[in-house]
């Protein structure tokens, strides 16, 4: 359970990122956050694992405030939260396996990880994670030899190996073609359903949001302007979130 209580964020230069956000996201939900560019989607997502600090309010994860956490405590909170980025953020020169194992690093002592020694169960966990996203055979290939979609699946595997209970995905498909987009979204959805991992995804394709989300949250200028089931998010609602009629390029347009 993730709770936002009166959360506001003002950047150092005075830009308002979030304005009095109040939200409760239950375990196992698949939430898609939509909004115009600059609406605050990334800011919202990144405040959950404290890649950004908030200026006001409090964020609770399973009843524990992460706003005050620091050092070891913060790292343990982060360990339970997998993050997926638009540009995958894999270490390109390392193998797929290394990249997936880097999700395990937070579980071990500094000394052990500096030596690069991972216990056997970690290796098995990493393999299972790769199997779940169907790229087990790429385990010992260098990450930069993979296509964009494959790289994104590796980053999902990294979150799985991390044994994350929450997955945050910031525009996970924005640099992928329509076909790969569906594969990656399918993976995320399947993991959400099979493992019950709470999933929060920022998306800018309206049809994708409707298709995959169980709940849609609309942001405008740092405020929540819509929060409801995907079915309720009609074109009319989107037009309100965006403050203008929806455009054609906001639809992925390829049916499943």
């Amino acid at each position, binding site marked *: 359970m993730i709770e936002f209580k009166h959360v506001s964020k003002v950047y150092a230069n005075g830009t308002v990122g979030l304005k009095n956000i109040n939200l409760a996201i239950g375990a196992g939900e698949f939430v898609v956050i939509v909004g115009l560019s600059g609406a605050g989607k990334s800011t919202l997502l990144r405040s959950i*694992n404290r*890649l950004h600090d908030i200026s006001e309010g409090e964020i609770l994860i399973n009843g524990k405030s992460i706003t005050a956490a620091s050092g070891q405590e913060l*790292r*343990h*909170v*982060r*360990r*339970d*939260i*997998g*993050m997926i*980025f638009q*540009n995958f*953020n*894999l*270490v390109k*020169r*390392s193998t797929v396996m*290394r990249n997936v194992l*880097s*999700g395990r*690093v*937070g579980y071990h002592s*500094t000394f052990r*990880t*500096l030596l*690069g020694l991972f216990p056997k169960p970690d290796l098995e966990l990493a393999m299972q994670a790769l199997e779940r996203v169907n790229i087990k055979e790429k385990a010992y290939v260098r990450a930069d030899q993979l296509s964009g979609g494959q790289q994104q699946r590796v*980053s999902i595997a*990294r979150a799985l190996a*991390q044994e994350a209970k929450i997955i945050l995905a910031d525009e996970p498909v924005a640099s992928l073609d329509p076909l790969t987009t569906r594969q990656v979204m399918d993976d995320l959805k399947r993991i959400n359903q099979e493992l019950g991992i709470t999933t929060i995804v920022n998306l800018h394709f309206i049809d994708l949001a409707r298709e995959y989300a169980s709940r849609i949250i609309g942001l405008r200028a740092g405020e929540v302007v819509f929060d409801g089931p995907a079915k309720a998010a009609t074109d009319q609602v989107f037009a309100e979130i965006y403050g203008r009629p929806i455009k054609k390029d906001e639809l992925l347009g390829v049916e499943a």
Partner: protein
Amino acid sequence: MLDVSQQRITVDDLKPKWFDFRKNGKMWSSLLILAVIYGWSIRETGISLPALVEGIPHMQDFLMRTFPPDLSILSKLMAPTIETIQIALLGTTLAVILAIPLGIGAARNMSPYPLVYRTCRMILNFLRATSELIFALIFVAAVGLGPFPGVLALGIHSAGMLGKFYAEAIENVSKGEIEALEAAGSNKWQILRYAVWPQVLPEFVTVNLYRWEHNLRAATVLGLVGAGGIGFELMTTMRLFKYDETATVLLVILATVTVIDFISTRIRMRVL
């Protein structure tokens, strides 16, 4: 679309702009300052073509006397040559060991505190600004004559050069990879190990090998101040006016440097 017919080109537009003193006052005054600096430097350093021309016979004399090189001393040069290579190897290794913590501390994105960052930068600047020969003089005074002060001198000065390179390489590591590790709950050391290290590795190997090559060349002159290596032989032969032996020493240095450069290039090619 640019409508060409609308643009009027006047004769003024075609005149080179830099020629106009009023418009380019800044450029002209910079040129003037530069000219003054050059003029002054040439006067102070006593650069003179006649002196060079007058010196030609002396140089001729020197070259004549180096010929033929006295190859009989080759066997005597063996030990100092090996020592030179050893000084370069150990000096470079020492430099790498010192430069790693300094480079991390001097990388803006990895330095733990601003004070650490500034201190490391300052140390690196100081080490770089002071040449290996000056360090060699200091260490010869401190630990006595021989190759050991040479190793220290190369190690300390090169640490400054390498640390600067490391810091730059670390700062160029893409932020995304660091963030991914951070988001997974890693600490600073783990980020260094899993996000930074793999990305800087090729550059790390390259600059270290370049430094080794450089240090070999530097080690050939350390002997001039008594810090070991073949430079000592170079100096003695010249002091005794045995220029045919000097020539042999120079040939040996040339051969050693060439061989080491070759080996280093091969290693670089294999690693990258």
